């Protein structure tokens, strides 16, 4: 049997977009082998209701581990559930997301199983029993093709590289028992402090508007926020110089030492394009740059550039985006 396990990440009872991406990638693998996709979802009571959504994206079976001790991410219990299931055999690959949770979870599972693991994968393919993944190295300056021996192999996908595709399957629900005493976990997430309601995260937002030193002062980030608002589906990011200066929190930093993002549209406002920053965003599908210096390196990677004063161009762009989206 060559089934594929997809870990369906959730938070506060809702599936995250990366869950559907994992199921989509798993479906692709299972279709190549003729096996099934088993989606594993772990959460508090009620999480079973998400099975339908997973089935719609290609899960033949939805494995549900429901327990109120899983309201917040429970790393030890979740990794134990996943490892138990994988240990039972029959799985060639387990697919996770390279999200904050997936980065934490996938290696734990690999450690428990002694399995081969490659994270931050941008492509995964099975040819017969030969599993290969593509994995960016050296801050994206190189791409490695890596084979993983043994079953199961653990991979985690870079967010936004597999767009969720609907491909309805039965989605037969199977309950999975949680460890005897989930509350005995040594590591406990005591609190989940969420940001502003409705605020999109960098890893999942289809559009990112990011600001750099060209904005000159923290308060001018309002321009960036306004433009993100106008898009309606955008998150705000920043360069390292900006987070180092404390204009924005470290969590907003895009780059080699910060977040690696690949949105559909990346708008760089007043960003010169230091290597450290380009490393974090160069895989974006479309890049727009606005900078007053026509020689700024950012224009080398931008699909569309406007040379000009950000204080003049950005408000005009915000207005135009708002206007363009009115019809939607």
């Amino acid at each position: 049997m060559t089934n594929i396990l997809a870990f369906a990440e959730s938070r506060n009872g809702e599936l995250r977009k990366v869950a559907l991406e994992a199921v989509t990638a798993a479906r692709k693998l299972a279709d190549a082998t003729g096996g099934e996709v088993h989606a594993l979802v772990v959460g508090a009571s009620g999480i079973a209701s998400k099975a339908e959504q997973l089935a719609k994206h290609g899960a033949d079976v939805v494995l549900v581990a429901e327990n109120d001790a899983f309201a917040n991410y429970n790393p030890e219990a979740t990794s134990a559930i996943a490892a138990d299931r994988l240990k039972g055999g029959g799985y060639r690959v387990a697919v996770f997301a390279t999200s904050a949770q997936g980065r934490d979870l996938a290696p734990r599972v690999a450690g428990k199983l002694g399995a081969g693991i490659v994270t931050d994968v941008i492509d995964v393919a099975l040819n017969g029993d030969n599993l290969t993944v593509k994995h960016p190295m050296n801050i994206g300056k190189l791409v490695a093709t890596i084979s993983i021996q043994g079953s199961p192999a653990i991979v985690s996908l870079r967010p936004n590289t597999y767009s969720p595709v609907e491909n309805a399957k039965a989605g037969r629900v199977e309950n999975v028992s949680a460890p005897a005493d989930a509350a005995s976990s040594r590591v406990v997430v005591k609190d989940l402090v969420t940001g502003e309601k409705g605020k999109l995260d960098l890893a999942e937002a289809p559009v990112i508007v990011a600001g750099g030193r060209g904005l000159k002062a923290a308060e001018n980030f309002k321009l960036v926020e306004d433009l993100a608002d106008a898009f309606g589906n955008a998150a705000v990011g920043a360069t390292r110089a900006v987070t180092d200066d404390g204009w924005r929190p470290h969590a907003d930093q895009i780059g080699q030492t910060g977040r690696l993002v690949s949105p559909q549209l990346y708008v760089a406002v007043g960003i010169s394009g230091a290597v450290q920053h380009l490393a974090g965003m160069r895989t974006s599908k479309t890049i727009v740059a606005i900078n007053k210096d026509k020689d700024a390196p950012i224009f080398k990677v931008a699909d569309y550039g406007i040379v000009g004063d950000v204080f003049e161009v950005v408000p005009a762009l915000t207005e135009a985006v708002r206007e363009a989206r009115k019809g939607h």
Partner: protein
Amino acid sequence: MSNGRRLTVIPAEYQPPLPSSLIVREPLDAEAVPMDVVFVGGGPAGLAGAIELARLIKEDTEAGGTLGETQIAVLEKSSGLGEHSLSGAVVNPRAFQELFRDLAISDLPFRAPVTNERVYFMMGGGRAQRIPTPPTMQNHGNYIASLSEIVRWLGEKAEAAGINIFTGFPVSSLVMDGEKVIGVRTTPTGLMRDGSQGSSYTPPTDISARITVLSEGTRGSLAQAWLDQAGIKGDNPQIYALGVKEIWETKKPLDAIIHTLGWPLPNDAFGGSFMYPLTPNLVAVGIVVGMDYRQTTLDVHQLLQKLKTASPFRDYLEGGEMVEWGAKTIPEGGYYALPKKRYGDGLLIAGDAAGFVEVASLKGVHYAMQSGIYAARTIFDALKKDDVCDNTMARYDALVNSSYIASDLKERRNMRLAFQGSGLYMGGIKATLMTLTKGAFPGGQIHSEPDADAPKNVAPEEPFVPDGKLTFSKLDANFKSGNATRDTIPSHLVVGSDIPPEVAEMYVHMCPAGVYELNDGKLVVNQANCIDCKATDVIGPRWTPREGESGPKYRLM
């Protein structure tokens, strides 16, 4: 000119004085790190000196001597050895052979021997005329090399010899007690732009030394300050050239070293260009221009960009890729610009900091190393005698003066000076006569003026649009220097007050790294772009030592 008005700028009128902080006269910190000998600057001079000194001490110890515990330190401002080192370079192996007697040429850090050489006179409009190689430019027996690589290699030898190499530690001040140099103080790290202490602030460290060697390289700040306070001058002031250099991976192999004269330099500027193959498809290309040039808008970086668009340069570079960029000044004053005294109580000056460069052949690396070796021999004697005072240190000047350093420089003593105020053609004729007479023509010493005193005509800016493939803007170029200086540190550049727009424009063009910008007639200083070439220190804003690990990160320069 439309209104017939002709404006000139005398750069010296706007240049601030050397900061007094370079010399402090106060006791060393009680917790000073104790060293015996400190070399300030880990280039060819400092490393060769440290290696020779370690060798002499080792031999002495093996023979029963008592200097075995001598602590030698090399302080280097860049984050890794060689990262601030830049030269052509076609190197004379002489000093290497003296320092590493057991090694064969093939063991030395050279890329290739010079086998073919060609010289062209460039006429503009894409025309270049091959001319016979002038005697001063013949390089048979010399080797093509990268100074960054040489310095890294010397560093490994020094490390193996037990020398303390401290990279990332610029020296901000010489510490003196009366006339005696007693140690050095490093720059602090972690200062914020407003001068406040950031979270990673580290205060300066004092280092005590019985002997300090200033091997800072070109336009050394401490050497300038020490010579000033001691009232030591040369017969002539030191003058400088600015060199801008790129490393290219080429599609077409290059089989010879190439030198050119003429275009794109204006006729009243002194200089030339070069192209050297490190390997047939890894090529160094550069241009060197005397800083006594005559137009405020002359821009050495742009001249290099123009140069590359013409044959023979274009033939090799087009379709290739520029992989590294850098710039550096070169002391060009030669024999008459050497300080009369290059030693003091507890102090020696070696290498470019002392001006040991022979400009006609464009060579300094072997003189730098050789002077370091002489410094080491002087120091060894002083330590043996337990006497580091002025009289003992005088041996250094005697060694240099009776060596090929002095005789080479003396033979070509007026070569560069012939060009000051003469332009290329008259200068060229004079230089030829000097070569033929081994320096006897024209008799006596040609006097020269500091570069900052040479008036510059306010000239319109020449249009230049880089294509990003063969030619590059300063910002793109700077990126290729590996420069990743923290841009929140306080500015290390001391700019004069009330800089008029014409002078500001001169700075904008003079600086190859894009540090200076003119914004609505106002001078903007992007200090983080600075790559320590020291060009503006010669005729404009002063360069001072900044936080360690700042500046470029050359690998192949």
